[in-house]
Protein backbone atom coordinates (compact mmCIF):
# COMPACT_ATOMS: atom_id res chain seq x y z
CA UNK A 1 0.00 0.00 0.00
CA UNK A 2 1.43 3.37 -0.98
CA UNK A 3 1.39 6.34 1.38
CA UNK A 4 -0.73 9.38 0.60
CA UNK A 5 0.81 11.54 -2.13
CA UNK A 6 2.23 14.90 -1.02
CA UNK A 7 1.86 16.31 -4.51
CA UNK A 8 -0.60 15.07 -7.04
CA UNK A 9 -0.82 16.39 -10.60
CA UNK A 10 -3.78 15.09 -12.58
CA UNK A 11 -4.16 15.38 -16.35
CA UNK A 12 -2.26 18.66 -16.69
CA UNK A 13 -2.44 20.29 -20.11
CA UNK A 14 -0.60 23.42 -21.18
CA UNK A 15 -0.22 24.87 -24.64
CA UNK A 16 1.61 27.98 -25.86
CA UNK A 17 0.04 28.63 -29.25
CA UNK A 18 0.82 25.56 -31.35
CA UNK A 19 3.44 24.28 -28.91
CA UNK A 20 2.24 21.64 -26.48
CA UNK A 21 4.24 22.12 -23.29
CA UNK A 22 2.30 19.66 -21.12
CA UNK A 23 0.07 16.87 -22.33
CA UNK A 24 -1.94 14.79 -19.90
CA UNK A 25 0.68 14.94 -17.16
CA UNK A 26 -0.19 12.73 -14.19
CA UNK A 27 2.31 12.54 -11.36
CA UNK A 28 2.07 11.55 -7.70
CA UNK A 29 4.99 12.46 -5.48
CA UNK A 30 5.25 10.76 -2.11
CA UNK A 31 6.53 12.48 0.98
CA UNK A 32 10.30 12.29 1.38
CA UNK A 33 11.06 11.31 -2.23
CA UNK A 34 14.00 12.74 -4.17
CA UNK A 35 12.71 12.94 -7.73
CA UNK A 36 14.66 14.03 -10.76
CA UNK A 37 12.90 15.49 -13.79
CA UNK A 38 14.86 14.90 -16.98
CA UNK A 39 14.30 15.70 -20.63
CA UNK A 40 15.81 17.65 -23.47
CA UNK A 41 15.31 21.42 -23.78
CA UNK A 42 11.66 22.26 -24.38
CA UNK A 43 10.46 18.87 -23.12
CA UNK A 44 8.20 20.46 -20.50
CA UNK A 45 10.15 20.08 -17.25
CA UNK A 46 10.28 23.75 -16.34
CA UNK A 47 6.68 24.23 -17.49
CA UNK A 48 5.71 21.51 -15.02
CA UNK A 49 7.67 23.21 -12.23
CA UNK A 50 6.14 26.56 -13.17
CA UNK A 51 2.64 25.08 -12.99
CA UNK A 52 3.29 23.51 -9.59
CA UNK A 53 4.55 26.82 -8.20
CA UNK A 54 1.72 28.89 -9.66
CA UNK A 55 3.73 30.89 -12.19
CA UNK A 56 1.79 29.26 -15.01
CA UNK A 57 -1.81 28.08 -14.83
CA UNK A 58 -2.57 24.81 -16.61
CA UNK A 59 -5.15 24.94 -19.41
CA UNK A 60 -6.81 21.99 -17.71
CA UNK A 61 -6.06 19.51 -14.95
CA UNK A 62 -5.69 19.69 -11.20
CA UNK A 63 -2.71 20.09 -8.89
CA UNK A 64 -3.14 19.04 -5.26
CA UNK A 65 -0.79 19.50 -2.35
CA UNK A 66 -1.71 17.34 0.63
CA UNK A 67 -5.14 16.84 -1.01
CA UNK A 68 -5.67 20.60 -1.22
CA UNK A 69 -6.32 22.04 -4.69
CA UNK A 70 -3.61 24.60 -5.47
CA UNK A 71 -4.23 24.85 -9.21
CA UNK A 72 -5.57 28.40 -9.17
CA UNK A 73 -3.41 29.79 -6.38
CA UNK A 74 -0.75 32.46 -6.80
CA UNK A 75 2.97 31.72 -6.27
CA UNK A 76 2.78 33.55 -2.94
CA UNK A 77 -0.14 31.48 -1.67
CA UNK A 78 1.52 28.26 -2.80
CA UNK A 79 4.74 29.28 -1.06
CA UNK A 80 2.84 29.76 2.20
CA UNK A 81 1.44 26.24 1.82
CA UNK A 82 4.97 24.87 1.90
CA UNK A 83 6.24 24.78 -1.68
CA UNK A 84 9.54 26.51 -2.42
CA UNK A 85 11.68 26.66 -5.51
CA UNK A 86 15.03 27.69 -6.85
CA UNK A 87 15.67 28.92 -10.38
CA UNK A 88 17.83 27.93 -13.31
CA UNK A 89 19.18 31.48 -13.30
CA UNK A 90 19.47 32.38 -9.60
CA UNK A 91 16.86 34.94 -8.62
CA UNK A 92 18.63 36.98 -5.96
CA UNK A 93 19.05 40.56 -4.81
CA UNK A 94 22.41 41.52 -6.33
CA UNK A 95 22.89 44.85 -4.57
CA UNK A 96 22.26 43.32 -1.15
CA UNK A 97 24.69 41.25 0.87
CA UNK A 98 24.29 37.51 1.30
CA UNK A 99 22.92 37.84 4.83
CA UNK A 100 20.55 40.60 3.70
CA UNK A 101 19.25 38.21 1.02
CA UNK A 102 18.52 35.73 3.79
CA UNK A 103 16.79 38.43 5.84
CA UNK A 104 14.59 39.28 2.85
CA UNK A 105 13.61 35.64 2.53
CA UNK A 106 12.75 35.35 6.20
CA UNK A 107 10.79 38.60 6.18
CA UNK A 108 8.80 37.35 3.17
CA UNK A 109 7.85 34.17 5.01
CA UNK A 110 6.32 36.13 7.87
CA UNK A 111 2.57 36.22 7.40
CA UNK A 112 2.28 39.69 8.82
CA UNK A 113 5.01 42.10 7.86
CA UNK A 114 5.95 44.60 10.51
CA UNK A 115 6.60 48.27 9.94
CA UNK A 116 8.59 48.52 13.14
CA UNK A 117 10.36 45.21 13.72
CA UNK A 118 13.95 45.58 12.51
CA UNK A 119 14.70 43.36 9.53
CA UNK A 120 18.02 42.49 11.12
CA UNK A 121 16.47 41.25 14.35
CA UNK A 122 18.33 38.65 16.42
CA UNK A 123 16.02 35.77 15.54
CA UNK A 124 16.28 36.29 11.77
CA UNK A 125 20.02 36.93 11.92
CA UNK A 126 20.60 33.72 13.87
CA UNK A 127 18.41 31.61 11.56
CA UNK A 128 19.99 33.16 8.48
CA UNK A 129 23.51 32.59 9.77
CA UNK A 130 22.65 28.99 10.63
CA UNK A 131 21.31 28.23 7.17
CA UNK A 132 24.30 29.91 5.52
CA UNK A 133 26.58 27.80 7.71
CA UNK A 134 24.80 24.61 6.63
CA UNK A 135 25.25 25.57 2.98
CA UNK A 136 28.89 26.46 3.60
CA UNK A 137 28.30 30.11 2.77
CA UNK A 138 29.21 31.71 6.10
CA UNK A 139 32.40 33.25 4.78
CA UNK A 140 30.42 35.12 2.11
CA UNK A 141 27.87 36.49 4.56
CA UNK A 142 28.82 40.15 4.21
CA UNK A 143 29.66 40.12 0.51
CA UNK A 144 27.31 41.61 -2.03
CA UNK A 145 25.66 39.03 -4.25
CA UNK A 146 26.84 40.74 -7.43
CA UNK A 147 30.43 40.00 -6.37
CA UNK A 148 29.85 36.25 -5.98
CA UNK A 149 30.73 33.47 -8.46
CA UNK A 150 27.96 31.47 -10.14
CA UNK A 151 28.18 28.35 -7.96
CA UNK A 152 27.84 30.32 -4.75
CA UNK A 153 24.86 32.16 -6.19
CA UNK A 154 23.22 28.83 -7.00
CA UNK A 155 23.67 27.65 -3.42
CA UNK A 156 22.37 30.93 -2.06
CA UNK A 157 19.33 30.66 -4.33
CA UNK A 158 18.55 27.28 -2.77
CA UNK A 159 19.29 28.56 0.74
CA UNK A 160 16.71 31.31 0.19
CA UNK A 161 14.14 28.72 -0.83
CA UNK A 162 14.88 26.76 2.35
CA UNK A 163 14.21 29.64 4.75
CA UNK A 164 10.51 28.87 5.02
CA UNK A 165 11.11 25.21 5.97
CA UNK A 166 9.16 23.94 2.94
CA UNK A 167 7.50 20.53 2.57
CA UNK A 168 8.27 20.43 -1.12
CA UNK A 169 11.37 21.90 -2.72
CA UNK A 170 11.69 22.27 -6.49
CA UNK A 171 15.18 22.86 -7.83
CA UNK A 172 15.38 24.00 -11.42
CA UNK A 173 18.73 22.79 -12.79
CA UNK A 174 20.71 23.32 -9.58
CA UNK A 175 24.04 22.50 -11.26
CA UNK A 176 23.61 24.27 -14.60
CA UNK A 177 26.39 26.72 -15.34
CA UNK A 178 28.59 25.15 -12.67
CA UNK A 179 31.94 23.61 -13.61
CA UNK A 180 32.21 19.80 -13.77
CA UNK A 181 34.52 19.71 -10.72
CA UNK A 182 32.11 21.79 -8.65
CA UNK A 183 28.93 19.87 -9.53
CA UNK A 184 29.28 16.90 -7.19
CA UNK A 185 30.56 18.83 -4.16
CA UNK A 186 27.69 21.24 -4.70
CA UNK A 187 25.08 18.49 -4.93
CA UNK A 188 26.65 16.82 -1.87
CA UNK A 189 26.16 20.06 0.05
CA UNK A 190 22.56 20.41 -1.12
CA UNK A 191 21.68 16.80 -0.32
CA UNK A 192 23.39 16.98 3.07
CA UNK A 193 21.23 19.98 4.00
CA UNK A 194 18.09 18.37 2.57
CA UNK A 195 18.92 15.17 4.43
CA UNK A 196 18.44 16.97 7.72
CA UNK A 197 15.00 18.23 6.71
CA UNK A 198 11.74 16.29 6.45
CA UNK A 199 11.11 17.47 2.93
CA UNK A 200 10.44 16.20 -0.55
CA UNK A 201 12.62 17.40 -3.40
CA UNK A 202 12.15 17.56 -7.15
CA UNK A 203 15.11 18.59 -9.22
CA UNK A 204 15.32 19.28 -12.92
CA UNK A 205 18.66 17.95 -14.17
CA UNK A 206 20.53 17.36 -17.42
CA UNK A 207 23.56 15.58 -15.99
CA UNK A 208 22.73 11.85 -15.83
CA UNK A 209 25.59 11.11 -13.42
CA UNK A 210 23.97 13.50 -10.96
CA UNK A 211 20.58 11.88 -11.56
CA UNK A 212 21.97 8.36 -10.95
CA UNK A 213 23.69 9.39 -7.78
CA UNK A 214 21.11 11.60 -6.07
CA UNK A 215 17.61 10.64 -7.28
CA UNK A 216 15.32 7.94 -5.86
CA UNK A 217 13.05 8.24 -8.84
CA UNK A 218 13.29 9.67 -12.34
CA UNK A 219 10.51 11.20 -14.43
CA UNK A 220 11.46 11.73 -18.05
CA UNK A 221 9.69 14.25 -20.28
CA UNK A 222 9.56 14.47 -24.04
CA UNK A 223 7.46 16.88 -26.04
CA UNK A 224 5.25 17.73 -23.07
CA UNK A 225 4.58 14.05 -22.24
CA UNK A 226 5.96 11.70 -19.61
CA UNK A 227 7.87 8.93 -21.33
CA UNK A 228 9.26 7.22 -18.24
CA UNK A 229 8.62 7.22 -14.49
CA UNK A 230 10.78 4.73 -12.63
CA UNK A 231 13.92 4.24 -10.57
CA UNK A 232 17.07 5.85 -12.06
CA UNK A 233 18.41 2.51 -13.35
CA UNK A 234 15.15 1.55 -15.02
CA UNK A 235 14.37 4.99 -16.39
CA UNK A 236 17.83 5.53 -17.87
CA UNK A 237 17.68 2.09 -19.48
CA UNK A 238 14.32 2.87 -21.09
CA UNK A 239 14.56 2.99 -24.90
CA UNK A 240 12.54 6.20 -25.22
CA UNK A 241 14.74 7.90 -22.65
CA UNK A 242 17.86 6.67 -24.41
CA UNK A 243 16.49 7.90 -27.73
CA UNK A 244 14.95 11.26 -26.78
CA UNK A 245 16.70 12.33 -23.59
CA UNK A 246 20.21 10.95 -23.35
CA UNK A 247 20.52 10.47 -27.13
CA UNK A 248 22.37 7.14 -26.71
CA UNK A 249 20.25 5.23 -29.22
CA UNK A 250 20.60 7.95 -31.84
CA UNK A 251 24.37 7.87 -31.40
CA UNK A 252 24.42 4.09 -31.70
CA UNK A 253 22.28 4.26 -34.87
CA UNK A 254 24.58 6.83 -36.47
CA UNK A 255 27.70 4.74 -35.63
CA UNK A 256 26.11 1.56 -37.08
Amino acid at each position, binding site marked *: MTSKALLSAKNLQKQFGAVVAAQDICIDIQSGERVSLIGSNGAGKTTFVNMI*TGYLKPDSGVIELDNYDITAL*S*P*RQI*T*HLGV*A*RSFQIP*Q*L*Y*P*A*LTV*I*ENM*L*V*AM*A*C*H*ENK*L*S*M*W*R*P*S*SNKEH*LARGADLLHRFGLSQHS*NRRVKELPGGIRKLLDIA*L*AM*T*GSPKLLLLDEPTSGVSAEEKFPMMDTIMRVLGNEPLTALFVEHDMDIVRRYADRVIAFYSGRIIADASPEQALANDDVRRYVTGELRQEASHA
Partner: protein
Amino acid sequence: MHRSIVSLTVITVFTAAALLALGLALPKWLLFMCTMAFANGLVSLGIMLLMRGGVVAFGQGLMSAIGGYTAALMFQKLGVKDALLLTMSGGVTAMLITAPFAPLLSRYRGIFFSMLTLALSMVGYGILVKTESLGGSDGFNLGRVTLFGQSLADAWVGYVLYAISACLACLMAYICRIYFDSTRGLITQAIRENELRVEYLGGSVRHTMAINFLIAAFLGGCGGAMAVMALGHIDPTFSYWTTSGEFVFVAILAGTQSVVAIMLSSIILEAVRSFSSAYFPNTWQLALGIFLLVVIRFLPHGLGSLWTRTTRKEQP
Protein backbone atom coordinates in the same frame (compact mmCIF):
# COMPACT_ATOMS: atom_id res chain seq x y z
CA MET B 1 23.60 46.04 10.77
CA HIS B 2 21.29 48.99 11.39
CA ARG B 3 21.47 51.72 13.96
CA SER B 4 19.67 50.76 17.16
CA ILE B 5 16.42 52.50 17.96
CA VAL B 6 18.02 54.12 21.00
CA SER B 7 20.83 55.71 19.01
CA LEU B 8 18.35 56.79 16.32
CA THR B 9 16.18 58.42 18.97
CA VAL B 10 19.15 60.22 20.51
CA ILE B 11 20.32 61.47 17.09
CA THR B 12 16.80 62.65 16.20
CA VAL B 13 16.25 64.49 19.49
CA PHE B 14 19.71 66.05 19.28
CA THR B 15 19.13 67.16 15.66
CA ALA B 16 15.72 68.62 16.47
CA ALA B 17 17.18 70.50 19.45
CA ALA B 18 20.06 71.78 17.32
CA LEU B 19 17.65 72.97 14.62
CA LEU B 20 15.48 74.72 17.20
CA ALA B 21 18.53 76.48 18.63
CA LEU B 22 19.79 77.38 15.16
CA GLY B 23 16.42 78.89 14.29
CA LEU B 24 16.87 81.50 17.01
CA ALA B 25 19.92 82.82 15.18
CA LEU B 26 18.50 82.78 11.66
CA PRO B 27 17.12 85.87 9.92
CA LYS B 28 13.41 85.88 9.00
CA TRP B 29 13.93 85.23 5.29
CA LEU B 30 16.06 82.20 6.06
CA LEU B 31 13.55 80.92 8.61
CA PHE B 32 10.86 81.04 5.94
CA MET B 33 13.11 79.36 3.39
CA CYS B 34 13.91 76.54 5.80
CA THR B 35 10.23 76.15 6.76
CA MET B 36 9.32 75.70 3.09
CA ALA B 37 12.29 73.36 2.60
CA PHE B 38 11.18 71.12 5.48
CA ALA B 39 7.56 71.18 4.31
CA ASN B 40 8.54 70.25 0.74
CA GLY B 41 11.09 67.79 2.09
CA LEU B 42 8.25 65.84 3.70
CA VAL B 43 6.60 65.43 0.28
CA SER B 44 9.90 64.31 -1.23
CA LEU B 45 10.40 61.89 1.66
CA GLY B 46 7.30 60.10 0.39
CA ILE B 47 8.78 59.96 -3.11
CA MET B 48 11.99 58.57 -1.67
CA LEU B 49 10.00 55.84 0.07
CA LEU B 50 8.39 54.90 -3.24
CA MET B 51 11.74 55.07 -5.04
CA ARG B 52 13.13 52.49 -2.63
CA GLY B 53 10.53 50.15 -4.12
CA GLY B 54 11.61 51.04 -7.65
CA VAL B 55 8.86 53.49 -8.64
CA VAL B 56 8.91 57.25 -9.01
CA ALA B 57 5.71 59.22 -8.35
CA PHE B 58 5.42 62.24 -10.66
CA GLY B 59 2.15 63.32 -9.11
CA GLN B 60 3.02 63.87 -5.49
CA GLY B 61 1.93 67.48 -5.92
CA LEU B 62 -1.63 66.18 -5.66
CA MET B 63 -1.00 64.88 -2.14
CA SER B 64 0.54 68.20 -1.23
CA ALA B 65 -2.49 70.03 -2.68
CA ILE B 66 -4.98 67.81 -0.84
CA GLY B 67 -3.13 68.42 2.42
CA GLY B 68 -2.93 72.14 1.72
CA TYR B 69 -6.59 72.53 0.77
CA THR B 70 -7.66 70.45 3.78
CA ALA B 71 -5.72 72.68 6.15
CA ALA B 72 -6.96 75.86 4.48
CA LEU B 73 -10.59 74.70 4.39
CA MET B 74 -10.54 73.53 8.00
CA PHE B 75 -9.14 76.92 8.96
CA GLN B 76 -11.66 78.91 6.91
CA LYS B 77 -14.82 76.86 7.22
CA LEU B 78 -14.47 74.99 10.49
CA GLY B 79 -12.42 77.49 12.44
CA VAL B 80 -9.72 74.94 13.29
CA LYS B 81 -6.55 76.93 13.81
CA ASP B 82 -4.14 74.63 15.59
CA ALA B 83 -1.06 74.11 13.43
CA LEU B 84 -0.44 70.50 14.48
CA LEU B 85 -4.06 69.50 14.03
CA LEU B 86 -4.17 71.11 10.58
CA THR B 87 -0.95 69.37 9.55
CA MET B 88 -2.10 65.93 10.68
CA SER B 89 -5.54 66.46 9.13
CA GLY B 90 -3.85 67.32 5.82
CA GLY B 91 -1.86 64.09 5.93
CA VAL B 92 -4.80 61.89 6.91
CA THR B 93 -7.10 63.43 4.28
CA ALA B 94 -4.50 62.98 1.52
CA MET B 95 -4.14 59.36 2.56
CA LEU B 96 -7.90 58.74 2.65
CA ILE B 97 -8.66 60.46 -0.66
CA THR B 98 -5.93 58.62 -2.54
CA ALA B 99 -6.53 55.27 -0.79
CA PRO B 100 -8.93 53.96 -3.49
CA PHE B 101 -6.15 54.39 -6.07
CA ALA B 102 -3.53 52.49 -4.07
CA PRO B 103 -4.58 48.97 -5.17
CA LEU B 104 -4.61 50.10 -8.82
CA LEU B 105 -1.25 51.87 -8.69
CA SER B 106 0.40 48.98 -6.85
CA ARG B 107 0.04 46.93 -10.06
CA TYR B 108 2.15 49.30 -12.16
CA ARG B 109 5.89 49.88 -12.41
CA GLY B 110 8.31 52.14 -14.23
CA ILE B 111 7.00 54.85 -16.51
CA PHE B 112 3.41 53.57 -16.20
CA PHE B 113 3.36 54.24 -12.46
CA SER B 114 4.93 57.66 -12.97
CA MET B 115 2.47 58.63 -15.70
CA LEU B 116 -0.55 57.38 -13.76
CA THR B 117 0.38 59.42 -10.70
CA LEU B 118 1.05 62.40 -12.96
CA ALA B 119 -2.35 61.94 -14.61
CA LEU B 120 -4.06 61.82 -11.21
CA SER B 121 -2.37 65.02 -10.11
CA MET B 122 -3.34 66.81 -13.34
CA VAL B 123 -6.94 65.66 -12.96
CA GLY B 124 -6.79 67.08 -9.44
CA TYR B 125 -5.35 70.32 -10.82
CA GLY B 126 -8.14 70.56 -13.39
CA ILE B 127 -10.83 70.03 -10.76
CA LEU B 128 -9.30 72.61 -8.43
CA VAL B 129 -9.00 75.22 -11.20
CA LYS B 130 -12.64 74.76 -12.17
CA THR B 131 -14.07 74.68 -8.65
CA GLU B 132 -15.12 78.22 -7.81
CA SER B 133 -16.03 77.35 -4.23
CA LEU B 134 -12.34 76.51 -3.67
CA GLY B 135 -11.22 79.80 -5.16
CA GLY B 136 -10.70 78.55 -8.71
CA SER B 137 -7.30 79.31 -10.22
CA ASP B 138 -6.65 82.08 -7.67
CA GLY B 139 -7.08 79.86 -4.63
CA PHE B 140 -7.68 81.50 -1.27
CA ASN B 141 -5.90 82.73 1.84
CA LEU B 142 -5.79 81.51 5.36
CA GLY B 143 -4.90 83.52 8.44
CA ARG B 144 -2.45 82.99 11.23
CA VAL B 145 -2.50 79.60 12.89
CA THR B 146 -2.21 78.91 16.61
CA LEU B 147 -0.23 76.33 18.57
CA PHE B 148 -1.84 74.45 21.48
CA GLY B 149 -4.51 77.16 21.62
CA GLN B 150 -1.96 79.96 21.92
CA SER B 151 -2.03 82.69 19.27
CA LEU B 152 1.36 83.56 17.81
CA ALA B 153 2.86 87.00 18.21
CA ASP B 154 4.15 88.82 15.11
CA ALA B 155 7.75 88.52 16.18
CA TRP B 156 7.53 84.76 16.77
CA VAL B 157 5.23 83.44 14.09
CA GLY B 158 8.06 82.75 11.64
CA TYR B 159 10.13 80.97 14.26
CA VAL B 160 7.22 78.88 15.55
CA LEU B 161 6.32 77.70 12.03
CA TYR B 162 9.98 76.92 11.44
CA ALA B 163 10.13 75.02 14.73
CA ILE B 164 7.02 73.00 13.89
CA SER B 165 8.29 72.14 10.41
CA ALA B 166 11.76 71.24 11.71
CA CYS B 167 10.37 69.02 14.47
CA LEU B 168 7.90 67.43 12.08
CA ALA B 169 10.67 66.80 9.54
CA CYS B 170 12.82 65.18 12.25
CA LEU B 171 9.91 63.06 13.51
CA MET B 172 8.88 61.86 10.04
CA ALA B 173 12.49 61.20 9.03
CA TYR B 174 12.89 59.20 12.27
CA ILE B 175 9.75 57.16 11.59
CA CYS B 176 10.76 56.61 7.97
CA ARG B 177 14.23 55.44 9.02
CA ILE B 178 12.66 52.89 11.36
CA TYR B 179 10.32 51.83 8.55
CA PHE B 180 13.20 51.50 6.04
CA ASP B 181 15.03 49.25 8.50
CA SER B 182 11.95 47.15 9.27
CA THR B 183 11.01 43.84 7.64
CA ARG B 184 8.54 45.64 5.37
CA GLY B 185 11.19 48.23 4.52
CA LEU B 186 13.60 45.50 3.50
CA ILE B 187 10.92 43.88 1.35
CA THR B 188 10.44 47.26 -0.35
CA GLN B 189 14.11 47.28 -1.30
CA ALA B 190 13.88 43.67 -2.44
CA ILE B 191 10.92 44.53 -4.69
CA ARG B 192 13.05 47.06 -6.53
CA GLU B 193 15.71 44.42 -7.14
CA ASN B 194 13.61 41.36 -7.94
CA GLU B 195 9.89 41.34 -7.28
CA LEU B 196 9.35 37.92 -8.83
CA ARG B 197 11.49 36.35 -6.13
CA VAL B 198 9.68 38.29 -3.41
CA GLU B 199 6.43 36.61 -4.52
CA TYR B 200 8.15 33.21 -4.65
CA LEU B 201 9.42 33.72 -1.13
CA GLY B 202 5.89 34.45 0.06
CA GLY B 203 5.95 38.26 0.23
CA SER B 204 3.11 40.35 -1.15
CA VAL B 205 4.50 42.87 -3.62
CA ARG B 206 1.22 44.66 -4.26
CA HIS B 207 0.33 44.96 -0.59
CA THR B 208 3.73 46.43 0.21
CA MET B 209 3.58 48.88 -2.69
CA ALA B 210 0.06 49.97 -1.75
CA ILE B 211 1.10 50.61 1.86
CA ASN B 212 4.10 52.61 0.64
CA PHE B 213 1.85 54.68 -1.60
CA LEU B 214 -0.43 55.49 1.35
CA ILE B 215 2.47 56.46 3.60
CA ALA B 216 3.81 58.69 0.79
CA ALA B 217 0.35 60.27 0.50
CA PHE B 218 0.29 60.97 4.24
CA LEU B 219 3.74 62.58 4.11
CA GLY B 220 2.71 64.61 1.04
CA GLY B 221 -0.45 65.82 2.78
CA CYS B 222 1.45 66.85 5.90
CA GLY B 223 4.01 68.70 3.77
CA GLY B 224 1.31 70.50 1.79
CA ALA B 225 -0.53 71.58 4.94
CA MET B 226 2.71 72.85 6.47
CA ALA B 227 3.59 74.79 3.30
CA VAL B 228 0.16 76.40 3.18
CA MET B 229 0.42 77.56 6.78
CA ALA B 230 3.80 79.15 6.03
CA LEU B 231 2.62 80.77 2.79
CA GLY B 232 -0.81 81.80 4.07
CA HIS B 233 -2.26 80.94 0.68
CA ILE B 234 -3.31 77.92 -1.34
CA ASP B 235 -3.95 77.62 -5.06
CA PRO B 236 -4.13 74.80 -7.65
CA THR B 237 -0.46 75.11 -8.68
CA PHE B 238 0.29 72.88 -5.67
CA SER B 239 -1.01 70.06 -7.84
CA TYR B 240 0.59 71.23 -11.10
CA TRP B 241 3.13 68.94 -12.74
CA THR B 242 6.06 71.33 -12.39
CA THR B 243 5.53 71.37 -8.63
CA SER B 244 5.57 67.57 -8.61
CA GLY B 245 8.74 67.74 -10.70
CA GLU B 246 10.45 69.79 -8.00
CA PHE B 247 9.62 67.16 -5.40
CA VAL B 248 11.07 64.49 -7.68
CA PHE B 249 14.14 66.68 -8.22
CA VAL B 250 14.76 66.74 -4.47
CA ALA B 251 14.33 62.96 -4.19
CA ILE B 252 16.77 62.31 -7.06
CA LEU B 253 19.24 64.79 -5.64
CA ALA B 254 19.08 63.01 -2.26
CA GLY B 255 19.14 59.39 -3.45
CA THR B 256 17.31 56.61 -1.66
CA GLN B 257 19.65 55.84 1.22
CA SER B 258 19.46 58.72 3.65
CA VAL B 259 16.47 60.54 5.14
CA VAL B 260 18.78 63.38 6.17
CA ALA B 261 19.79 63.83 2.53
CA ILE B 262 16.17 64.53 1.60
CA MET B 263 15.92 67.48 3.98
CA LEU B 264 19.36 68.70 2.94
CA SER B 265 18.44 68.47 -0.75
CA SER B 266 15.21 70.30 -0.12
CA ILE B 267 17.16 73.12 1.56
CA ILE B 268 19.58 73.18 -1.38
CA LEU B 269 16.69 73.42 -3.86
CA GLU B 270 15.11 76.27 -1.94
CA ALA B 271 18.48 78.05 -1.70
CA VAL B 272 19.23 77.62 -5.41
CA ARG B 273 15.72 78.78 -6.24
CA SER B 274 15.94 81.84 -3.96
CA PHE B 275 19.38 82.97 -5.10
CA SER B 276 18.82 82.18 -8.76
CA SER B 277 15.50 84.03 -8.69
CA ALA B 278 17.28 87.01 -7.20
CA TYR B 279 20.28 87.06 -9.54
CA PHE B 280 18.97 85.35 -12.72
CA PRO B 281 15.24 86.13 -12.51
CA ASN B 282 14.01 84.22 -15.54
CA THR B 283 16.55 81.47 -15.74
CA TRP B 284 16.58 79.89 -12.32
CA GLN B 285 15.46 76.58 -13.82
CA LEU B 286 18.64 76.67 -15.91
CA ALA B 287 20.77 76.95 -12.78
CA LEU B 288 18.74 74.16 -11.21
CA GLY B 289 19.18 71.93 -14.25
CA ILE B 290 22.94 72.45 -14.36
CA PHE B 291 23.16 71.71 -10.65
CA LEU B 292 21.22 68.46 -11.10
CA LEU B 293 23.44 67.44 -14.03
CA VAL B 294 26.54 67.93 -11.90
CA VAL B 295 25.06 65.85 -9.07
CA ILE B 296 24.00 63.04 -11.43
CA ARG B 297 27.46 63.03 -13.02
CA PHE B 298 29.47 62.94 -9.80
CA LEU B 299 26.99 61.46 -7.30
CA PRO B 300 24.75 59.10 -9.27
CA HIS B 301 23.32 57.66 -6.04
CA GLY B 302 22.54 61.08 -4.66
CA LEU B 303 23.89 63.22 -1.86
CA GLY B 304 23.11 60.53 0.70
CA SER B 305 25.67 58.24 -0.89
CA LEU B 306 28.39 60.58 0.40
CA TRP B 307 27.95 59.41 3.98
CA THR B 308 26.17 56.07 3.56
CA ARG B 309 29.15 54.90 1.46
CA THR B 310 31.53 56.05 4.20
CA THR B 311 29.50 54.24 6.86
CA ARG B 312 29.63 51.00 4.86
CA LYS B 313 33.40 51.26 4.44
CA GLU B 314 33.77 51.65 8.19
CA GLN B 315 31.88 48.40 8.84
CA PRO B 316 34.12 45.34 9.31
